[in-house]
């Protein structure tokens, strides 16, 4: 197995705080998640109006990916073969509950395609792929907790089989406004942090 891969950068959003490569870039401990994520989006100057139509999971994953990828100064002329491998515990349950609520009572029955489309966890991967024109490998996995071993194995497989040049991977969890976390990292042939289980867990816990 090739162990010559590195973690080039990482981004985390939790407890109403956004950090990139370990440094806090935005913090707002007062507000609810909805207010916090909108304010963070504005402060980060993401300029992507579709953001406001996204569900909570997509907003969380999109912003974390955008902050990380923006910092990479990716080429706009040539394609970037960056695979996306995401995971979480709650799938799209936050939006699933909203759709269920809209059909629970026949007297107030109002299922909406704008909600239903977000009842799949991989929609957030689609949103990021559209913004960054990533026609690359993508997959969404569910585990009951952060699974560094799985992400390591799958990422190494994509890189060593030349399916991708870099892999954006991690954990994007949104159960409810008080239980959310994004931890994304970019695996590449360049970088200072070794791509191994211990270092992934260390970064996840910081």
């Amino acid at each position, binding site marked *: 197995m090739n162990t010559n891969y590195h973690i080039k950068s990482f981004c985390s959003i939790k407890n109403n705080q956004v950090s990139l490569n370990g440094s806090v870039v935005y913090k707002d401990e007062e507000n609810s998640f909805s207010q916090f994520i909108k304010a963070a989006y504005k402060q980060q100057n993401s300029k992507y109006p579709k953001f406001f139509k996204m569900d909570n999971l997509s907003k969380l994953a999109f912003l974390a990916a955008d902050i990380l990828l923006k910092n990479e100064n990716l080429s706009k002329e040539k394609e970037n073969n960056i695979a*996306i491998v995401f995971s979480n515990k709650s799938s799209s349950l936050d939006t699933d509950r909203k759709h269920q609520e809209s059909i629970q009572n026949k007297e107030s029955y109002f299922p909406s395609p704008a909600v*239903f489309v977000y009842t799949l966890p991989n929609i957030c991967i689609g949103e990021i792929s559209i913004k960054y024109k990533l026609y690359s*490998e993508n997959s969404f996995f*569910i585990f009951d907790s952060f699974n560094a071993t799985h992400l390591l194995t799958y990422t190494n497989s994509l890189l060593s089989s030349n399916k991708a040049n870099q892999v954006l991977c991690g954990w994007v969890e949104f159960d409810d406004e008080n239980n959310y976390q994004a931890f994304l990292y970019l695996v590449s042939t360049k970088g200072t942090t070794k791509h191994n289980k211990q270092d992934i867990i260390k970064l996840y816990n910081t």
Partner: protein
Amino acid sequence: MSKVYVSHNNIISSLGFSSDAVVSKISKETSGLQRIDNKSILPEPFYTSLINTEILQENFNKLHPKAEYTRLEQMMITSLSKVIDASNIKLNDRVGLILSTTKGNVDALDTNNPFSKDRAYLSELGNQVKNFFGFKNKAIVVSNACVSGILAVAIAKRYIQQDVYDHVFITSGDVITEFILSGFNSFQALSSAPCKPYDADRTGINIGEVAASVLVTNNSTDLAKEAVTVLGEGSCNDANHISGPSRTGEGLYRSMQSAFKQANITAEDVDFISAHGTATMYNDEMEAIAFNRMQLSNVPLNSLKGYFGHSLGASGLVETIVGMHALKNNTLYKSLGFETLGVTKPLNIITKTTEKNITRFLKTASGFGGCNTAILFQKTN
């Protein structure tokens, strides 16, 4: 790199409780779809395929369950138990488990459902299946929209080639719920007639209920008669729209390119295509464009949605299993519901079930979020 095979398999559906029984119905061009008119599920009548509850429970009870299991768990466990029995493999730490589903036990969110709402967590579904059989490794749950079932095969192959596992069991399924039907209906995608993939008079999709399971292994001995070698796979995004396919078929085209490159074969080497064919205009048209870009327009092609409906998380896997049996039986199965070409690019749709010596097939799927997957399979015997 070690070779990877898809071997023992099972299908549970309205067409039967074993792959052989289901394939025998398909060879007779029998559809598993039926009309349902039940206002408590959906305001309008719709077509679906439903697993027979009595036979499911009878089969499941033979496994002596010691707790209460949801309908989906019963489907998956019953299906997987048949594959584990046929494989005769000891479940040690070199054996993996992958579950493919889009919505899992989402019916547990319904206030009228007897199970706890916590059962709707997909990891809980994974734990239920893992613990029932005593797998040593955690279940890997794949939830990547409508490509999940076929993507699971690619993931199993990758795990084996990374030398993490020697064998991976995959089980897949989704249940027919008001949740799913009301959602697709809000998109005005549901047909009130049996679906007609690629046909000029198509009226939309049918959702169907299936559980399908396979063994993926690196061991070339003790393979099932219909076992196939995985030649190459790819799974690429459209980067275009979250709920509509790309007009150029970009992601599907790239997925096929990736699979052909890895397999090191060309379009002429493919004997048939088991396509996605949901019978929506956008999907069918997108596929026609992508297959033409790959020079695959002359290759015989079918969609199996006319037999099962779209079985979501199971669809890619159940269609792969039928493809494996097609190779073994040297038979091209009719694309049920098709009469007149209703896409703007030529396709060679199979209009009559025919015997033919065949060796390789291409399986494709596409889904919401812009995801696509393509895998090339080759007969082993």
